[in-house]
């Protein structure tokens, strides 16, 4: 049995040295420190008061690492303490509130942002300051004398009667402090005390005055005063002047403001919200120039139109910036070279199938498109597109100077523009190329205000020029055609030679800067032009190539600004080809495919238009059947086009080899008996075999050959021998292009065999002019073959780093904490955490509320009891009083009766 509580207490007191015999001084010192003693006592008290501490009455479970919560829940809790603490707190807050309810008024703090917890003190201060200054600007009351320098002043004998200046005159220097305090009180009297907010400001003002006063002490007072007065007068006059100026200008501008807003609204909504504000800010700065312009517009013939134009210019005017210094010629050239180099690098990267990531903001995954195409090749979708080595393309010469003319030149050429067909369209292209040169930075070309005035005046002058032109047949204005039929009806009465002029005029009249909708219109027009090229190619036997070239160049320059439209139009044409005549290309298709190779980079690894165009050509070459010489001619054209496409990227095209070899076998004077290689031999349905004779000489092939077959046998033979030489030279070029291919030998051994056979069969039967290309091509191929043999090595493709074996070791968490949730899904973890917190808070709040309620109930009960007790007391007191009175009266009565 343990000793009694008293004994235990004594023992523990003794242990802790609170009680007991005197200790050594050192020990005593340690013990005597009150805090340690207090702690010890507290511990002892806690230990001996078992009711203070909550005990767990459940038997504890086994301790597991992942057991939720702390196992000592409630172990160290002291419910009595917490309860009394809570009680205390409630008494301090709730009870007070309860008592003061319906009894006491409060002070509302209306300082700005004082009760807004979302604002930082700095923000509050800034906002208050802003309001303050606004109020100052408003100045509702003329009696508010805060800073009324420009207000009417009372004077006496030419001297101001204002309080700041002269009133100090009346006071002695020694009374300065009083004067100030007096001033302050007077101010306070006069001011309309509207808000607390002004308080700070007032104080600041006073401090300012004090500062101003400080240097004044050194001078004599009169001097100081004079100075002050002079200064204030000067400032006042200046301010007045400025204000008047502003007023005038504002009035002027206010009149124009609605127009301006309209113009702004008409323009497509700009992405940056700051933009519309820019012109407004500009006005004040550009005042003189603007005024001049406005004057000009007054004098011009068509003031409204002119005005509109100016207005539009204004819209896009930029804030003047410090410009870069004028560059020297060398620097310009260098910059140009740099730019070209960058473009070329981009091209090479596209060729390798890498992604362009730097400049395009809407850079969608190039692979994605590819993946789409391969979507049905489910196994093939996993292919990455690693780089493979290609040679760099020879650096571009500076021969393309006509594309990148600098703006000043542009202005000059435009100002003396004549409507000569070639020149004017050149300028148009220059326009757009200059746009383009600014464009690639991803900037909206519309923002480019710098070139705009020149541009527009150029357009205007072009229009003016047109009207002066003697050429009376052509109309000067054309609507922008929306589809090909409209365009055809427009150009119905126009000679073919004039079409470029018409196109040029349409482009000039619908320049995107002249009207907001023009950009779309021109885009549509570009599509129409693409359609028109193939239409023109198909229409006539010998298409006018100068005109076609011009149109294609127009399309190209339009493509720079409207790439999407041109692409869509080209793809529509290609789709039509693929659907309707995949194996029977029309001349127009061939022209379009040729043109297409100029405005789209055919070297790209994947290009939305160039790749299908390739495929169209390949399909034609691979599957078409030869029935006539014209077929062969168009096939040859397509084959040359293939090589043209591959000039830069040097990709291999099996169909080209197949087709050329097949064609040569068909054209050979005698049908070859043996097979030359793995290309499939398809005999022409109609014999196109060459009849070797010395009468005909090969010529350069003409596009006309594609459309018409000559009926004259002599001409036919001539065409055949020309086809042979062209095909042979094509093979020669192909061998140059593909010389680096690892399977060069395999590709060109059959070619060599065919050419040898051809040489054999033509030997001595035709002119040397026909023999010679075969021989030279053979020599070339032979040398390439020898070279290919020399560089041939066994393949060494799999020199990869060995792949790591996939590991299956579980992820081990250092310092695992069972209370922490290791949820890999961050969002879920977060939401779980929030849920838990919410639950806890809710529980806590409910508990608190419940306690509050019980506290309130208790308090009310207590109050009621108090009141009741008071009442009881009063009642008793009254009863007692009455009784005593009664008693007294009775006594008196008794006494009186007794006396009686």
């Amino acid at each position: 049995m343990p000793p009694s509580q008293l004994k235990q207490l004594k023992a523990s007191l003794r242990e802790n040295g609170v009680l007991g015999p005197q200790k050594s001084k050192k020990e005593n010192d340690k013990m005597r420190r009150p805090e340690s003693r207090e702690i010890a006592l507290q511990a002892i008290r806690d230990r001996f008061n078992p009711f203070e501490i909550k005990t767990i009455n459940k038997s504890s479970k086994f301790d597991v690492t992942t057991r939720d919560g702390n196992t000592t829940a409630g172990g160290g809790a002291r419910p009595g303490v917490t309860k009394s603490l809570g009680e205390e707190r409630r008494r301090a807050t709730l009870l007070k509130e309860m008592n003061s309810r319906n009894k006491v008024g409060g002070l509302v703090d209306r300082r700005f942002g004082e009760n807004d917890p979302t604002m930082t003190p700095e923000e509050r201060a800034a906002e208050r300051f802003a309001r303050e200054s606004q109020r100052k600007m408003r100045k509702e009351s003329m009696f508010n004398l805060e800073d009324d320098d420009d207000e009417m002043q009372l004077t006496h004998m030419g001297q101001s009667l204002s309080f700041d200046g002269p009133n100090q005159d009346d006071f002695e220097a020694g009374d300065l402090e009083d004067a100030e305090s007096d001033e302050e009180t007077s101010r306070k009297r006069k001011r309309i005390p509207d808000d607390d907010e002004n308080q700070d400001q007032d104080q600041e003002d006073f401090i300012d005055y004090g500062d101003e006063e400080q240097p004044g002490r050194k001078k004599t007072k009169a001097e100081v005063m004079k100075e002050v007065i002079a200064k204030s007068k000067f400032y006042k006059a200046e301010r007045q002047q400025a204000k008047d100026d502003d007023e005038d200008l504002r009035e002027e501008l206010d009149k124009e403001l609605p127009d301006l807003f309209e113009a702004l609204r008409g323009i497509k909504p700009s992405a940056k919200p700051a933009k519309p504000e820019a012109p407004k800010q500009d006005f004040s700065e550009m005042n003189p120039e603007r005024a001049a312009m406005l004057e000009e517009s007054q004098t011009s013939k068509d003031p409204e139109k002119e005005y509109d134009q100016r207005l539009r210019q204004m819209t896009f005017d930029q804030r003047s910036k410090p410009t870069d210094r004028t560059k020297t010629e060398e620097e310009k050239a260098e910059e140009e070279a740099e730019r070209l180099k960058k473009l070329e690098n981009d091209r090479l990267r596209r060729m390798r199938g890498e992604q362009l990531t730097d400049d395009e903001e809407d850079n969608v995954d190039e692979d994605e498109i590819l993946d789409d195409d391969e979507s049905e090749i489910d196994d093939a979708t996993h292919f990455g597109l690693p780089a493979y080595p290609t040679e760099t393309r020879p650096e571009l010469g500076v021969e393309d100077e006509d594309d990148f003319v600098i703006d000043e030149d542009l202005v000059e050429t435009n100002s003396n523009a004549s409507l000569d067909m070639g020149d004017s369209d050149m300028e148009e292209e220059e326009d757009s190329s200059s746009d383009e040169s600014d464009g690639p930075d991803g900037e909206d070309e519309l923002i480019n205000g710098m070139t705009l005035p020149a541009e527009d005046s150029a357009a205007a002058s072009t229009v003016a020029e047109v009207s002066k032109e003697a050429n009376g047949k052509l109309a000067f204005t054309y609507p922008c055609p929306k589809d090909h039929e409209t365009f055809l009806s427009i150009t119905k009465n126009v000679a073919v030679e004039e079409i470029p002029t018409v196109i040029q005029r349409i482009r000039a009249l619908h320049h995107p800067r002249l009207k907001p909708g023009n950009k779309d219109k021109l885009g549509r027009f570009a599509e129409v032009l693409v359609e028109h090229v193939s239409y023109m190619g198909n229409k006539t036997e010998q298409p006018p190539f100068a005109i076609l070239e011009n149109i294609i160049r127009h399309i190209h320059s339009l493509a720079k600004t409207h790439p999407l439209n041109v692409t869509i139009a080209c793809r529509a044409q290609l789709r039509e080809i693929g659907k309707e005549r995949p194996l029977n290309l029309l001349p127009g298709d061939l022209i379009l495919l040729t043109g297409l190779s100029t405005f789209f980079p055919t070297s790209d690894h994947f290009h939305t238009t160039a790749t299908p165009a390739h495929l169209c050509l390949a399909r034609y070459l691979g599957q078409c059947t030869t029935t006539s010489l014209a077929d062969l001619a168009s096939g040859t054209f397509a084959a040359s086009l293939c090589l043209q496409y591959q000039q830069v990227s040097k990709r291999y095209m099996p169909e080209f080899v197949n087709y050329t070899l097949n064609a040569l076998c068909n054209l050979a004077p005698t049908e070859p008996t043996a097979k030359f290689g793995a290309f499939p031999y398809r005999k022409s349905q109609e014999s196109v075999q060459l009849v070797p004779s010395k009468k005909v000489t090969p010529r350069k092939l003409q596009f006309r050959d594609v459309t018409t077959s000559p009926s004259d046998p002599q001409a036919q033979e001539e065409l055949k021998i020309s086809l042979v030489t062209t095909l042979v030279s094509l093979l020669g070029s192909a061998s140059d292009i593909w010389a680096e291919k690892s399977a060069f030998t395999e590709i060109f051994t059959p070619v060599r065999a065919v050419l040898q056979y051809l040489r054999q069969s033509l030997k001595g039967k035709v002119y040397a002019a026909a023999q010679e290309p075969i021989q030279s091509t053979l020599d070339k191929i032979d040398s390439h073959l020898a070279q290919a043999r020399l560089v041939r090595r066994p393949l060494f493709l799999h020199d990869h780093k060995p792949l790591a074996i996939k590991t299956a070791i579980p992820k081990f968490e250092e310092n695992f904490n069972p209370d922490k949730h290791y949820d890999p899904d961050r969002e879920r973890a977060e939401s779980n955490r929030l849920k838990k917190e919410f639950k806890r808070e809710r529980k806590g709040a409910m508990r608190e509320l419940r306690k509050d309620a019980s506290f309130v109930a208790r308090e009310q009960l207590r109050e009621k009891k108090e009141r009741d007790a008071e009442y009881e007391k009063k009642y008793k007191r009254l009863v007692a009083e009455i009784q005593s009175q009664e008693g007294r009266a009775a006594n008196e009565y008794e006494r009186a009766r007794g006396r009686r």
Partner: protein
Amino acid sequence: MPALVTDSSSKKRKSGKNASGPSSKRRAVADDNFAEKLSTIQELENQIAESRKGYNNIATLLSMLNVEKSAEKPEMAVAVSLCRVFSRLIAGGNLTESSRAAENEKIIVAWLKERCLDYQNALVAIMREADAASQIAALTLSMRIVKERLAHIPGAENNVWSTGFFKDIFAAIIEAHNGEDLQSEAVAKFVKEYEDVRYYTFTQMADYASTTRSPETLEILIKILQTCDEVPGPEHKFENFYAKRDTKNKRLVSSNSHRKQAQEAWLAILRNNLSQSQRKSLLRMMVHNIEPWFNRPELLMDFLTDSYNVGGATSLLALSGLFYLIQEKNLDYPQFYTKLYSLLDSELLHSKHRSRFFRLLNTFLSSTHLPSTLVASFIKRLARLALNAPPPAIVVIVPFMYNFFKNHPTTTFMMHRSIRDKDLLAQVENEGMDDPFDPNESDPNLTNAIESSLWEIVTLQSHFHPNVASIARIISEQFTKQAYSLEDFLDHTYAGMVTADLGVEERNLKKIPVVEYQIPKRIFTDRLLEEDGGVDSGPGCFMRNLWEF
């Protein structure tokens, strides 16, 4: 049509039954020629039914048939009525000779038999020559006679089916003038419907095709045979018979004998002189339509090996049949792989049977027990062919090779080979090397392909089409995938690839397409040539040098 005919005949029969009744009303109404004729026929028929004296009317009716000289415009009403007459006679036993019968009875029977034969011949003639409706009607009538004879004349089975009337009917069906309708009718109504008819058709077919026939006739035979595509299984219950069956005859109820007859028929056709296209179409249906009929498919061996040796597309088609025999019947085909190797020629990848062939090739080469040299030869040969192949074929070949490399790791030397021998290395460094592969060697075990490398596929990695190029690139990447599923690659075409690139409709382009940044000075013409000193070197000069615009 025959339904109509039978309908009308049954109606007539009804009217015939009440012929003795008052049919004067009808006669009064029908006053035109046709009705009159009908009534005469009816009368004649009734007389025959009434007594023997009327038998002479049979001859009259036969003469009314209008088929003596040419059967192009037969009187079908007469034919129908005659059919009724003979059916009745056969059913009444009037055509059966009893040995105890009197002499004059015998004479009558013989005479009737002769008339019956006349009638049968007339029907056959109608089937051969008349118009489609009459042909079909005649067919129905003939089959009816067949049925009646089989039902009522004992022991006629052999007589009717194999040698007698049915043979003539069959020949008439095959040789009928403009007989497509007739044939399809015969197949749909009789051959496919009734198992005994089918059985005997097979018999007749085998008999008929044993002599050399013209390709057109064979075409018809093949068509008929092809439509009989429901091969009876061993548990099949034969219940659907057209005529009464001789219970002693067990052949008709055994699926074996059915199949045997079909086999005979097919064999007879296969041995006949088939045109090339027929041979191909037969090969195409070999697995699904022909082989199931065969009890002994090895009988097809001759045909298949012959076809296999023809070369080209025929060989390709014969492959699957041959494979079936090799697989199922343990056919030993010497030098099968050599032959298979020789099939890989320049036309293969351009042929429309490409995917079919690749499926089979995949099966043939799927064994991991094949020598690596052989597999390497196939790989190398395919690589060579791929250099001249259209994109859809390349797309198949490369994953195909990938699977081989996975299955036959020794062949991976074709992708990766480091030369260890120092002398050889020096030699290669100095002089380069030739391809050790011998493309002209026909034995795939001797081509030395395993010493070679797949330069061809490396070249195709720069194929003009980006998808093809990236597929070709799989052989130089790490082989992490177990195998490519060939089916995903097999059925691509140019058209499909074009649609994949262009789409059917213009969808929104995800990306602003890149435009060439410089506008060339010249595209077609020699514009501004003097600026460049007369030398055309700008982009597109290649075309301008070759062509004059």
